[in-house]
């Protein structure tokens, strides 16, 4: 980390244009070779409320959104009031002085940067959102970047309305120049590079990765935070020749996806927890009829409807326990946004090779937020392994009856694509024999029943050979091993660096394949660890339990978070210190002043006359 990084927070109400200002800024810095990691904390209202977008920007790719803002762009008074206090010496806040005024004393050393927007752009009078453009222009300067990147972004954004381009570019330039003339630049100045970044969300990466890996059928029912996968697919269906359907519910979604997978296309669907609950019955069907299907679950804070706009990692139990009975399934949790891009390809290969359902456990943090990914990592040809699939191109007919569920040594039975001559079969969710004929309709047949259970289960024997085992990151022999799974990878990498800087020697193991589990590899690594600390974004420690069930390993300490906000490096560092001081479980909490919320009925504040009806008699 020899490159400086700057974190800018943009806040406003829904409708104030937080997202678009953030996007303009992010793409502009990306065009100057900066990498970005964004985190947007927002509210489940369509208009109004508060939205707080943090962009961490650096020439060296940031792996998380950091834990300290350097600059704030306040689009409304509320933002100014909430977040001013979060800044530290050297930090600054940009705001439209014609509209907003700080109501608190800024922390020591924090620079107030009022922008006289009406003077800077005449367009403001009719288009109040021009204040955003001015502020973005100013921010570019204060970070030490050039103006050109921003101009080119504004040009492409408004490509269809040339007059608007001009006004915006002028306003941005005015902001840029005004900042140069009136404000102190940030202490950390960014360096331009020539790297090419694409700014994308995990959802977009997941969708694009799936399409590149041969997904031909995508079906979904809208559900946050997975909806954008559907929207990306819908927008690209025609040009890429993919059938994309929104249907009546998640039950229909998964059954259609399995139906399509059964016919021989690569088929995927996505949802979040409650939708996955509805899909579980059919996931068992896919296990039983041995149909490849990929089901993405973008986790959000539960239980039940929970907090739809907040992140969590608490659906591992659900994925593990999806559907009744024992059957082969694979569960993978991508570790980063780039991993969101690669995971569908892996999932399809495994689903087709092992003819079973594959569940991808992603989460809101990685799927809804934006990150820059090196474009060269995206422009790749995925290896496509369709497993033992018999098509018109490769099928041999030897005159022998075709056994769809043949009891082979590997447990994998060559699968004929329906429509093939000489390979008729029936796939049934009842227990069936090798030829597909139901065993459930005979009186009883313990021998054949057992044979078929064993055959299916045997397929899992070789999965681990096809998925690299996790490896220890950092120094072997460190005092402390942090263990995480899924999206916490980026925050843990940085936490480990900081711990080491602070003299606490730590290394790191991140798990992506949850079922089946790399028992041997993980045990080998962790049994050599001096102190294991498991970090996960849920209440009960679902992964810790899974690890113990699989390997018997018990951690020395646990750091958990289930307050809706994601981990930041500082939480982990603080948690580790508490554990080293003797605690075994640390539930960390986000407590930034900006996150203090005025509860509509004020449970912890003043009650009088505000509580839902109950206080009045009926």
């Amino acid at each position, binding site marked *: 980390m020899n490159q400086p990084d700057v974190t800018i927070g943009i806040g406003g109400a829904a409708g104030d244009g937080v997202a678009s200002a953030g996007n303009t800024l992010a793409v502009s810095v990306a065009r100057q070779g900066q990498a970005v990691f964004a985190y947007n904390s927002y509210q489940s209202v369509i208009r109004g409320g508060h939205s707080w977008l943090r962009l961490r920007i650096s020439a060296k790719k940031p792996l998380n959104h950091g834990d300290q803002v350097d600059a704030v762009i306040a689009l409304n008074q509320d933002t100014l009031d909430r977040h001013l206090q979060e800044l530290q010496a050297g930090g600054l806040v940009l705001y439209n002085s014609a509209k907003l005024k700080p109501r608190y004393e800024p922390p020591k050393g924090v620079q107030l940067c009022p922008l006289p927007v009406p003077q800077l752009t005449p367009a403001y009078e009719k288009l109040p959102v021009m204040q955003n453009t001015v502020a973005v222009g100013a921010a570019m300067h204060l970070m030490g970047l050039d103006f050109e990147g921003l101009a080119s972004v504004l040009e492409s954004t408004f490509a269809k309305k040339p007059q608007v381009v001009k006004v915006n570019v002028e306003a941005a330039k005015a902001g840029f120049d005004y900042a140069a003339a009136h404000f102190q630049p940030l202490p950390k100045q960014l360096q331009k590079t020539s790297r090419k970044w694409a*700014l994308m969300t995990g959802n977009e990466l997941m969708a694009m990765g799936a399409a590149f890996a041969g997904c031909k059928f995508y079906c979904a029912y809208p559900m946050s935070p997975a909806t954008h996968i559907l929207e990306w697919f819908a927008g690209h269906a025609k040009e*890429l020749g993919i059938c994309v359907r929104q249907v009546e519910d998640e039950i229909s979604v998964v059954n259609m996806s399995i*139906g399509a997978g059964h016919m021989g*296309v690569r088929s995927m669907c996505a949802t979040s927890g409650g939708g996955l609950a509805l899909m579980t019955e059919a996931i068992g*069907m896919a296990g039983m009829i041995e149909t490849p299907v990929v089901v993405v679950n973008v986790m959000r804070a539960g239980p039940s409807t929970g907090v739809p706009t907040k992140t969590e990692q608490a659906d591992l139990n659900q994925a593990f326990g999806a559907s009744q009975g024992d059957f082969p399934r694979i569960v993978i949790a991508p570790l980063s946004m780039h991993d969101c891009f690669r995971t569908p390809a892996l999932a399809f290969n495994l689903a087709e090779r092992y003819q079973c359902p594959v569940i991808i456990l992603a989460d809101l943090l990685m799927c809804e937020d934006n990150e820059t990914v090196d474009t060269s990592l995206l422009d790749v040809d995925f290896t496509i392994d369709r497993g033992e699939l018999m098509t018109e191109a490769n099928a041999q007919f030897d005159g022998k009856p075709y056994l769809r569920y043949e009891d082979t040594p590997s447990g994998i039975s060559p699968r004929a694509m329906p429509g093939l001559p000489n390979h008729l*079969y*029936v796939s049934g969710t009842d227990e069936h024999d090798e030829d597909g004929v139901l065993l459930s309709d005979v009186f009883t047949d313990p021998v054949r029943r057992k044979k078929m259970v064993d055959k299916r289960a045997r397929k899992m024997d070789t999965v681990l050979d096809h998925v690299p085992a996790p490896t220890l990151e950092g120094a072997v022999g460190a005092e402390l091993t942090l263990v995480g799974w899924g999206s916490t990878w980026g925050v843990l990498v940085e936490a480990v660096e900081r711990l080491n800087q602070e003299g606490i020697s730590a290394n790191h193991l991140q798990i992506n394949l949850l079922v089946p589990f790399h028992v041997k590899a993980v045990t080998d690594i962790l049994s050599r660890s001096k102190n294991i600390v498991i970090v996960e974004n849920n209440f009960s420690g679902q992964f810790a339990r899974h690890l113990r069930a699989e390997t018997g390993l018990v951690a020395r300490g646990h750091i958990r978070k289930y307050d809706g906000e994601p981990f930041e490096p500082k939480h982990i560092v603080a948690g580790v210190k508490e554990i080293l001081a003797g605690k075994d479980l640390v539930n960390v909490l986000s407590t930034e002043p900006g996150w203090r919320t005025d509860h509509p009925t004020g449970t912890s504040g003043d009650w009088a006359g505000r509580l839902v009806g109950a206080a009045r008699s009926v």
Partner: protein
Amino acid sequence: MATAVAPKKMAMKDFKPEVPPDWCPGCGDFGVLNALFQACAEIDLPPRDLLVVSGIGCSSNLPGFIRAYGVHSLHGRALPFATGAKLANHGMTVIATGGDGDGYGIGLNHFIQAMRRNIDVTYIVMNNEIYGLTTGQVSPTSETGMKTKTTPHGNLEQMLNPMALALASGCGYVARGFSGQPKHLMKLYVDGIRHRGFALIDVFSPCVTFNKVQTYEWFRERVYKLEETGHDPTNFKGAMDRALEWGEKIPIGLLYRNPSPPPSLHEQDPGLQSGVLVHLPLGVSGEQRRKCIGEFT
């Protein structure tokens, strides 16, 4: 492909399987199945181009009893499975089969949405007005007042009317048959399978074991053929009138056929305009890839 297959005229025997149906002797589903053999032969449909998808129930065992590609899916889920299958390979003929509980009970939402969606699937419902496989509980099509194992004091609910629902949902081919009239039924199948879009054929198919009210005799006394009454199946309102008829006289035959049916779903879906999905090359071209990535830079 390994073996070249000479085109030939299909006969009923080509669809008869080695596994004999294990329905109770006399079950109405035998008639449903036989008429289907005949219809497939009539259409001259090679078994390998036919996919039969069912849910769970006595009636849903049907795919095991016909030589074709088959799927015996989950209770109530035949239609979504069939929809996904058809969209993945619209070169195949897809028939969905099941019972009244399967299609009008647990699966009702999918049924209505499939009709709105106009997926090119022929749906044959063996309506015995009872839950057969689970040994005799009330079904959505059981008559009000009917005593079953779970309604010992009589069914309190109003009977579901699949014909009226199909019409109200925009189904372009709405028919009802009776397994005691297999020739008539066969004709309904043939037209239904040929219909571009969703086709419903609800079939009175007596459960001789658990429904002691709606027996063959009961139906025989009541059913009359619309084809013999001058009914105009292209007249929507007339069809709705027929759909609401129930009691002494119950119509069978083609209630409604949309005279100008809209294209079916696979004919319109933007992603299917490049061809049959299962035959498309997997993945995307380098050019497409770079275009997709470029949108984010």
